[in-house]
């Protein structure tokens, strides 16, 4: 079943980041086997001596390219990277990532909002990466963001859903899609994000640094799908005491 995000009809709710991969050449296999439709890339200076393969040659044509502004320290730099991204790919999907804190790589929500306002005005589909803050998510929604991307835990930490109590209000209260990004280290984390009601999950480090990125991507994709199915069905409430699964009538006592 398709859903709408950033003006596109997509099937997959699992987005992948392309950083830290052992080789860009595994991207087509990963995309195919995990059914991925959205992939993020970053922009960097290039020296003519570097004869590394170009990532753009490895991303299948049907994928939506989401340009990431990582490396930007303020709104102005993020806007500049977004414009470069559009010039290079024609893709208007931009993930705003503004960080000034090198230790935890936590996003600067305020600069992210400024960049969102500017880029929405220039016709971009803006996907801001934020700390899970409902008030900021509402401001971004009002500014015209295509979705919000709150973190589950700091980038690359593999800690999983550390702040469900902050993510859930965002999922409950805003109308635009919520993509849980960063900190997803295992398939169970991805499933948990989807069970919470996220519209999609983005993972990078957990896949790229796995001994087998393709298989990990497939495992994540399955977990995302399973979590989404459970959410759509409706999860059951936790109970304090046991509730027998088998009938408790006195079967044994009767044969005595």
């Amino acid at each position, binding site marked *: 079943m398709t859903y709408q995000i950033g003006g596109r009809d997509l099937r997959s709710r699992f987005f992948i*980041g*392309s*950083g*830290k*991969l052992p080789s*860009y050449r595994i991207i087509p296999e990963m995309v195919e086997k995990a059914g991925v439709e959205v992939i*993020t*890339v*970053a*922009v*960097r*200076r*290039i*020296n*003519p001596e570097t004869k590394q393969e*170009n*990532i*753009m*040659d490895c991303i299948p044509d049907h994928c939506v390219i989401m*340009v*990431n502004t*990582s490396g930007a320290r303020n709104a102005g730099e993020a806007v*500049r990277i977004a*414009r*470069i*991204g559009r*010039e*290079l*790919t024609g893709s208007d999907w931009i993930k705003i990532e503004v960080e000034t804190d090198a230790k935890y790589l936590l996003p600067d929500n305020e600069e992210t909002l400024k960049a969102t306002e500017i880029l929405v005005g220039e016709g971009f589909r803006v996907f801001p990466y934020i700390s899970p803050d409902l008030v900021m998510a509402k401001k971004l929604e009002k500014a015209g963001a295509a979705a919000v991307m709150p973190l589950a835990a700091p*980038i690359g930490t593999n800690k999983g859903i550390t702040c469900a109590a902050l993510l859930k209000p965002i999922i409950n209260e805003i109308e635009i899609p919520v993509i849980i990004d*960063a900190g997803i280290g295992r398939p169970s984390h991805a499933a948990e994000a989807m069970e919470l009601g996220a519209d999609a999950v*983005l993972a*990078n*480090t957990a896949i*790229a640094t796995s001994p087998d990125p393709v298989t990990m991507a497939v495992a994540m994709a399955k977990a995302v799908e399973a979590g989404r199915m459970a959410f759509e069905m409706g999860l059951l409430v936790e109970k304090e005491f046991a509730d027998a699964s088998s009938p408790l009538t006195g079967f044994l006592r009767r044969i005595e």
Partner: protein
Amino acid sequence: MIKLNGTETPYRETIGELLSENHYEMKKIAVLVNGEIVKRENWPVFVLKPGDEVDVVTFVGGG
């Protein structure tokens, strides 16, 4: 001199000349002069001034 990706490089009159002189492959790159994008079709005619900062960028893997 021109500052090409942060390094002082001999002056060339146009972006096109600067790129080919420095052995850049023209595919899949974007060029910024003093922070502003210059569209590909203007590279052969865009005249540089001494001291201009030119950045050549492309895509890499990133989350």
